[in-house]
């Protein structure tokens, strides 16, 4: 069977992700009735929709059979794909980061910064990150009982941490945040560069390319600076690093900065904002953590499952394969739906309930296998420190208006979480 056009159009519609319920209902139906079938929304090549937790793990685990880089790693229309290939000399990618790479390059490029993101290295950042977290909570407290937690805390705190790690000066952080939101929010008129709800391929590709070019101009200057004057930051590692005995290629170096400067904060921001939104709507969960801080790791894992900020990645079969009883042909494109995997009723009891004491909680929000999120330990550490400090001083939270999500089918989360709060 093939997934109906109406349902196929829903799972690629950025507005369905802003709505939340619409996309949840679509995937719930698919998990029940068509857990692994092909879809062909209008304007797209056909692709398999992988909705179940076990099947997502199976595809991610077999990274030689299911490649990241052979076709676009992000779902894209036929027209947009043609435009990107025309611009990029036949490549389906505007950038070439770890996300678009397969072995042997993936392993070699990942090793370059892997040590930076290992738990034992991150320990040395603990005190500084705590200082940053308390600074943002001080500012929140000074706002007198209400704030937009997404805009005032969640967007800014992980941004500040990763920019310090990379070596971007604080004065440039608003620019980095704007560029990130323009990139991931390219379909959202409140965030994108055109300010309009534009879905035509030419405008979409042009807009994303102009954002990528702005990032590249910025990081090109940083590369030159770090080659002349190395520092103790990630930019110095990228600028002076070698892969396969050669300096990084220009596109690969720029892409490395871009992924660190976007995915390195936006996903943690979305998760943090979604966590507070969920706790404001489920005060008993807030009270549980307040009464027992040993639940903070549980709160973090449940927040990551709940938010699942990366909505999908695409994979391409390198050979004929069988998955969950279906014949996948060489060259087929697969859509891994992480929010669907994280609501899989066969893995998570009451998956649509936010429960800070959920255990086990083996979500797939960070991916799995060789491409598992490089920054996952940093993300968890940032959230642990923020919530440790938050629960020391905040006594209660409640919604103070209508929260809103970004409209995007790739990476998205809350864009506004208005709350009222009281302090101890």
């Amino acid at each position: 069977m093939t997934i109906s056009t109406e349902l196929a159009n829903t799972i690629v519609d950025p507005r369905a992700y802003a709505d939340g319920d619409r996309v949840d209902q679509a995937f719930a139906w698919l998990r029940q009735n068509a857990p692994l079938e092909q879809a062909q929304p209008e304007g797209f090549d056909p692709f398999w929709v992988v909705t179940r937790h076990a099947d997502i793990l199976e595809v991610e685990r077999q990274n030689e059979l299911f490649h990241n880089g052979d076709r676009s790693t992000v779902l894209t229309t036929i027209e947009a794909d043609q435009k990107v290939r025309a611009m990029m000399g036949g490549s389906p990618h505007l950038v070439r980061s770890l996300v678009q790479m397969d072995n042997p390059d993936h392993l070699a490029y990942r090793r370059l910064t892997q040590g930076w993101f290992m738990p034992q290295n991150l320990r040395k950042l603990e005190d500084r990150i705590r200082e940053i977290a308390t600074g943002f909570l001080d500012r929140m407290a000074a706002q007198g009982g209400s704030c937009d937690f997404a805009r005032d805390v969640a967007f800014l705190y992980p941004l500040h941490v990763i920019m310090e790690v990379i070596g971007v000066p604080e004065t440039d952080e608003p620019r980095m945040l704007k560029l990130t939101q323009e990139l991931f929010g390219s379909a959202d008129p409140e965030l994108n560069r055109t300010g309009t709800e534009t879905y035509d391929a030419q405008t979409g590709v042009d807009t994303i390319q102009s954002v990528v070019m702005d990032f590249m101009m910025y990081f090109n200057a940083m590369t030159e600076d770090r080659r002349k004057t190395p520092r103790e930051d990630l930019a110095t590692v990228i600028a002076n690093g070698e892969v396969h005995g050669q300096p990084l290629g220009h596109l690969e170096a720029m892409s490395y900065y871009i992924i660190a400067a976007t995915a390195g904060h936006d996903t943690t921001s979305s998760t943090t904002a979604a966590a507070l939104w969920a706790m404001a709507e489920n005060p008993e969960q807030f009270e549980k953590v307040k009464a027992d801080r040993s639940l903070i790791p549980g709160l973090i894992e449940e927040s990551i499952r709940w938010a699942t900020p990366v909505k999908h990645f695409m994979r391409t079969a390198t050979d004929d394969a069988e998955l969950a009883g279906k014949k996948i042909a060489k060259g087929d494109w697969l859509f891994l739906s992480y929010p669907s995997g994280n609501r899989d009723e066969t893995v998570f009891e009451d998956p649509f309930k936010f429960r800070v004491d959920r255990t086990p909680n083996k979500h797939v929000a960070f991916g799995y296998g060789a491409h598992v999120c490089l920054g996952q330990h940093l993300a968890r550490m940032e959230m642990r420190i923020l919530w440790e400090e938050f629960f020391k001083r905040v006594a209660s939270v409640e919604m103070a208006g209508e929260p809103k999500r970004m409209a995007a089918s790739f990476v998205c989360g809350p864009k506004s979480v208005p709350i009222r709060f009281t302090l101890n």
Partner: protein
Amino acid sequence: MSEQPYKTWQCRTCGYIYDEEAGDPNEGLAPGTRWSDLPDTWICPLCGTPKSDFDMIEL
């Protein structure tokens, strides 16, 4: 003869750390479970990397 000191092992792919002293109760591994007692088929709970691709580390 005294007990061997506890050791820690790290996944080469994702950095997950298995500490014998702490075990990993979420994975059903009680505190004190030795690395050598994990079956050879055991895989990293975060990324699925096989047990053979872990390194012993000192923290």
